[in-house]
């Protein structure tokens, strides 16, 4: 009897705290055609063998930047002697004498960094016995991030032991030319699927199971049958790459099936570092990228067009996932590139009305309004990734982010007020930026230490499919070359072949940019921001009985607590600046309260003390108050303790300058 099942494989190194949404969707898509399949989360097993903490470090720290996870499996793929010392010198340390690189290099020299390699062969041996391979007709590997080499290593062994298996790769690592390079270079791979496989893959499987022959479908690149092995059926014309048609009717997609993940997670014996989370997808593409593709973004290679699920469909899916997997977790992360703004009218209010206990994560644009953040929090959206990237408006313009520095800071403030955690990073190295812009940001950062800091910072990477990659020469980037790590991941290949596997590229600037030097003071300031925030830095305002205005409590720097009393007219202006305001609009506001004779000189005299106390920020003649109003927001514990101490010390309030008439 011919095998009729499909096996899917999720190899190291991808996170262990969430399932693969790609495989969850494909399994559900096959089920709609009554084709049984299993998803094997072998990454969980490898984490079990090497330890969850070191595994997760490879997924999400500097180790990921040097592609250590891929490198660890190369010996198993090529059966060659690894060149660890060269890898450390030329990859780990190649980006200059950074602290993290030196630490990682040190671990490498001592052998600690490569220690997980001892588990690779036993792990692959275990994989060979862990699934009923003989029962499968097709084995599908998902390959994203650092999954490619481990997947190839297992695919090679499977093909040797079970030649009947049709082995197909999908995922971001085989998009476009990267997929064709994979197919051409590794004869045990029978096909790759480039692009969204939701419709094409189940159709392919159905035909294959019925006829025993792989059909030629758009987006699938196939190897010829064995007699003609070596050629490809649908080799693209020069300059073009096959790609699956994009899904347009998002509502027609099935609900993802994560049963295999949670069952295998239940059985996995490793320390639970991060709580598990369920992945949901409510849209694909990027509505902002359709208008202005951020220069560094390599997502959505050929499917930038934004497509979202209807509110009801998104809600149905969320409730289904909550019902089915709620016993494991209430954390649900949307994999969307950007939140659909239409959802503020339907999906988000409907979610709020349900009052279910979930914590949702979404990627968003940064120029959200206060009422939108309120609505998000009320609906259970507890974490966002708003793509802040910088706090300089001109640099943000170079990125095509469509947001100003003050809007970014405003978002951080409102996020803190509404208990939404914003994950963000700081990016440097854009063509056209100046050292003076970084010096200015370094001077500003100490005013912001009560706001959620960035998780990390670094010079921009050149990603395949990004505008900077496609327009490198026009932009001023030269000597574009694959990350040095690829030399060690594909060691015996010619440089031009290796180039086709690469997603990450290094580059030089045509005009000299000493990014490391001119970002030093800002990097120091960002580190202190992280440290101060963790210590409980806070800045908040509240109405206090016994005063006729507003009091701002400044606990941003330990040992330098301040209480600043604002006059009623200052309060009016300060509260008006809760959102970004122009100088002109502030004058109008002043004239409304103080009469038409009020002028800019008076306005400046009122604002100057607030600027000097760094509780108000001014950039490009626009103003933003920095203190978070107490109400929805309650100060952090460290700040409350300091407040009590101040009261017990009998400290008096500082009174700011009265308005000049």
């Amino acid at each position, binding site marked *: 009897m011919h095998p009729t099942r499909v096996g899917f494989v999720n190899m190291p190194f991808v996170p262990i705290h969430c399932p693969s949404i790609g495989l969850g969707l494909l399994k559900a898509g096959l089920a709609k055609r009554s084709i049984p399949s299993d998803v094997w989360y072998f990454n969980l097993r490898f984490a079990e063998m090497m330890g969850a903490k070191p595994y997760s470090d490879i997924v*999400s*720290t*500097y180790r*990921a*930047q040097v592609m250590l996870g891929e490198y660890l499996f190369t010996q198993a793929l090529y059966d060659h002697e690894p060149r660890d010392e060269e890898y450390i010198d030329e990859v780990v340390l190649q980006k200059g004498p*950074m*602290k*993290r690189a030196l630490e990682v290099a040190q671990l490498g020299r001592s052998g600690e960094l490569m220690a997980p390699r001892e588990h690779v062969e036993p792990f692959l041996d275990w994989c060979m016995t862990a699934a009923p391979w003989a029962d499968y007709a097709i084995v599908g590997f998902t390959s994203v991030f650092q999954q490619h080499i481990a997947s190839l290593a297992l695919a090679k062994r499977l093909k040797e032991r079970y030649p009947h298996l049709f082995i197909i790769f999908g995922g971001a690592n085989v998009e476009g030319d990267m997929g064709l390079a994979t197919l051409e270079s590794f004869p045990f791979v029978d096909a790759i699927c480039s692009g969204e496989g939701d419709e094409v893959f189940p159709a392919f499987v159905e035909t294959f199971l019925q006829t025993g022959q792989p059909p030629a479908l758009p987006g699938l690149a196939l190897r010829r049958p064995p007699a003609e092995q070596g050629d490809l059926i649908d080799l693209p014309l020069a300059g073009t790459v096959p790609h699956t048609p994009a899904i347009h009717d998002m509502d027609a997609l099935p609900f993802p099936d994560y049963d295999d993940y949670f069952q295998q997670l239940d059985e996995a014996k490793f320390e639970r570092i*991060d709580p598990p989370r369920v992945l949901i997808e409510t849209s694909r593409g990027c509505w902002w990228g359709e208008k202005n593709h951020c220069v560094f973004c390599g997502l959505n290679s050929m499917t930038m067009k934004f497509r979202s699920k209807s509110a009801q469909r998104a809600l149905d899916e969320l409730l289904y996932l909550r019902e089915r997997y709620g016993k494991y977790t209430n954390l649900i*992360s949307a994999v969307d590139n950007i939140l659909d703004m239409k959802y503020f009218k339907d999906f988000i209010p409907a979610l709020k009305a349900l009052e279910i206990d979930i*914590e949702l*994560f979404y990627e968003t644009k940064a120029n959200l309004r206060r009422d939108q953040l309120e609505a998000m929090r009320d609906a259970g959206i*507890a*974490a966002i*990734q708003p793509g802040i990237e910088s706090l300089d408006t001109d640099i943000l313009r170079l990125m095509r982010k469509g947001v100003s520095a003050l809007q970014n800071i405003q978002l951080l403030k409102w996020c803190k007020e509404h*208990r939404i*955690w914003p*994950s*963000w*990073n700081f990016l440097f190295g854009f063509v056209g930026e100046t050292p003076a812009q970084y010096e200015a940001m370094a001077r500003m950062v100490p005013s912001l230490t009560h706001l*959620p800091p960035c*998780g*990390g*910072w*670094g010079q921009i990477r050149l990603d395949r499919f990004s505008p900077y990659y496609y327009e490198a020469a026009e932009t001023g980037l030269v000597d574009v070359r694959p990350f040095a790590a690829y030399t060690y991941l594909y060691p015996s290949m010619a440089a031009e072949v290796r180039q086709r596997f690469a997603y990450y590229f290094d580059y030089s600037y045509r005009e000299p940019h000493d990014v490391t030097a001119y970002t030093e003071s800002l*990097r120091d300031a960002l580190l202190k921001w992280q440290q101060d925030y*963790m210590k409980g830095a806070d800045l908040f305002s*509240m*109405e*206090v*009985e*016994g*005063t006729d205005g507003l*009091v701002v409590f400044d606990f941003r720097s330990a040992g330098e607590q301040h*209480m600043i009393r604002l006059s009623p007219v200052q309060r009016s202006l300060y509260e008006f600046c809760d959102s970004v305001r122009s100088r002109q609009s502030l004058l109008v506001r002043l004239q409304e309260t103080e009469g038409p004779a009020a002028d800019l000189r008076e306005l400046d005299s009122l604002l100057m003390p607030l600027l000097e106390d760094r509780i108000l920020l001014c950039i490009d003649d626009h103003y933003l108050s920095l203190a978070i109003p*107490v109400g929805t927001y*309650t*100060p*952090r*514990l*460290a700040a*409350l*303790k300091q*407040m*009590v101490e*101040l*009261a017990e010390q*009998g*400290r*008096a*309030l500082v*009174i700011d300058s009265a308005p000049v008439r």
Partner: protein
Amino acid sequence: MSEKKSVQLRKDDVRVDDKGNLVIANPELTKMIKSEKVTEINEVDAHRVTISWE
């Protein structure tokens, strides 16, 4: 059984006396804040989703 309470700062909890000194008008709040048992949820860990580098 442990009892969970949220520390909430309200307008009436704080006032300024006639000398301009800060006064915490809610002794319960002071007691709660000074308690060794009070802890804060680590908001960074709860929602960590991005990678760090440098």
